[in-house]
């Protein structure tokens, strides 16, 4: 794996956004050749989305030939509920960029047949040629998407019941009222994300430090599902200092020492603008 450590949240968000930007542009997407991106929700990626929007508004990056697949969506929450992941993606990303609505895929948590909806989602990913870069986060309990502790590391897109840790973590979005937090969600599986050509996990904040430690310094374990990515050939973890607080000093020093190599991935930052 690459472990990219930046000083703070803003720098981590910016590094991640630059990386995504460069990957899309270097891919040279065009009609019939779409770059497929897997996308997360939550508070961690907000800074990254803001930077991507900035690159778009400055004319450097277009999402015209990008297809997106979101990781998850709550079950039973109306699509236009302010806390649904559809609302999140619209307000924090889609409404600011030029993506074709036909290319923005999010699981429908109100589908009549939820498993059929999940199967159809897997099919759409397959038809799009697989995911080029899957961006994700990590829960305080080490989960990726809603693959709660105990999820099979070979799992596919399916319905999951949320763990108490997750419900508690999400309560802040529902006025602190536990009874209002959805208890089930549709989520891509660990296996689904493992199929991506490349995976980037964003981890910021001290409250995620223990999960990061479990994910990269301990063994592959279905109780900390992000640990599965130790077995993926191309994974990048992008963190801030605070997220590394539970790691061994040796690990942190090693990867910090590699920053000059990591930074070559984001510098120069490419642009879709015609240069004079």
């Amino acid at each position, binding site marked *: 794996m690459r472990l990219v450590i930046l000083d703070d949240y803003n720098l981590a968000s910016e590094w991640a956004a630059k990386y995504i930007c460069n990957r899309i542009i270097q891919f040279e997407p065009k009609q019939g050749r779409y770059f497929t991106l897997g996308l997360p929700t939550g508070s961690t990626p907000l800074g990254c989305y803001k930077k991507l929007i900035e690159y778009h508004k400055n004319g450097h990056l277009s999402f015209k030939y990008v297809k997106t697949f979101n990781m998850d969506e709550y079950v039973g929450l109306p*699509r*236009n509920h302010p806390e649904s992941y*559809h*609302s999140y993606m*619209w*307000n924090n990303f*889609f*409404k600011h960029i*030029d993506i*074709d*609505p*036909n290319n*923005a895929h*999010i699981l429908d948590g109100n589908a009549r047949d939820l498993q059929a909806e999940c199967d159809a989602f897997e099919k759409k990913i397959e038809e799009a040629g697989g995911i080029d870069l899957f961006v994700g986060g990590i829960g305080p309990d080490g989960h990726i998407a809603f693959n709660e502790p105990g999820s099979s590391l070979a799992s596919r897109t399916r319905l999951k019941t949320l763990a108490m840790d997750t419900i508690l973590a999400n309560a802040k979005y529902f006025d602190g009222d536990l009874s209002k937090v959805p208890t089930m969600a549709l989520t891509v599986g660990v296996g689904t994300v493992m199929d991506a050509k490349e995976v980037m996990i964003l981890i910021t904040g001290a409250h995620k430090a223990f999960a990061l430690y479990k994910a990269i310094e301990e063994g592959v374990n279905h109780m900390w599902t992000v640990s599965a990515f130790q077995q993926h050939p191309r994974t990048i973890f992008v963190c801030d200092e605070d997220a590394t607080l539970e790691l061994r000093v040796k690990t942190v020093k090693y990867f910090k020492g590699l920053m000059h190599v990591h930074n070559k991935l984001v510098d120069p930052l490419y642009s879709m603008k015609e240069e004079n």
Partner: protein
Amino acid sequence: MMPSNKSVSDAPIVQFTNCQILRNHQLQREDLWVREGKILNPEKLFFDEKGSADIQLDCKNSIIAPGFIDVQINGGFGVDFSLATEDIKSGISLVSQKILSHGVTSFCPTLVTSPPSVYHQVLPQISIRNGGPHGAGILGVHLEGPFISQEKKGAHPEHHLRTFESGAFQDLLATYGHLGCVRIVTLAPEMKRSSEVIQELTRRGICVSLGHSVANLSQAEEAVQQGATFITHLFNAMLPFHHRDPGIVGLLTSDQIPAGRRVFYGMISDGIHTNPAALRIAHRAHPKGLVLVTDAIAGMGLAPGKHTLGQQVIEVYGMNTYIAGTKTLSGSVATMDSCVRHFLEATGCTVEMALEAASLHPAQLLGIEQQKGTLNYDNDADFLLLDDSLHVQATYISGVQVWPQDTFAL
């Protein structure tokens, strides 16, 4: 531009960008989307229809507000709505077209106290109609008088004042002749049998307003309990506030208002009808009830001089409008947008409140806020582009730019 693939409608979708829109009582950095004359929900368009904009217009950081609604305007540009002519339609059309540049997208032509013959001739000629490039929409007529107090007649002609004490509602009906297009009636509630009249008007969906009256607070509260919901030009033509009997002004803080109802009050904020301190007192006492009105007369929009207001002759000096040869104020020559600006400056209120006093509140008064007065999704796309000092740059009705009448204003 994205190839659009909309399942609900093929009508073009316009996205107004780079603007601040008034929504949920706040100016927000959001785009405004319009389709088929209504405000469109872009999130629904994106997810449900997989649609996108056909046209994007850069508003150069303008403020977008709902179109203004003027519920008390007696005429303008030489037209007097209370004058009995054969051709009231073209007079109304002229005014409705001219006020577009003031940001007014809907209005209630107002008739002052007149003899029955005038009502019988004029009212059948006025019809409620939608606005468009031809002019602002007509929501219905505001009849101010003749059932008002002799002591507070203001500029209304004394010999045409009437009572309804013998026949109550039948007297009113006989006087006006035709109520089909009537939206608001201003009357003095202390008059005998007013309760019956107020009840019947309210039952018919006509808004009852209290004005030109010497009512005390209990009489005013009784009227509100019978259905009255508006006060015509607060402070003017009523008893002044008194600390042991606040009169009609006391309705602003009365605890006798039926639950779930709100009393609205018109204010002419032209800098002349009301001292700014009085404007502030009213605004602070009951901000959500304040409705800006112009009470404009025929001289509005014209050079100073002599004009008519129904049966009276009015003299205009600058912004001051008096009955000829007197110091009695009668109407104004203010425009709605200047009233909004003056209100903002005099009260120090937020831009949002100033804009809502001219749009949301009159819409709520008339019970039409599901169609007009806001930029909520599915409402009529009647809106204004304004600069930071609230000067109107462009006026839209049903999503079409109606003023200025040429290409996109910006």
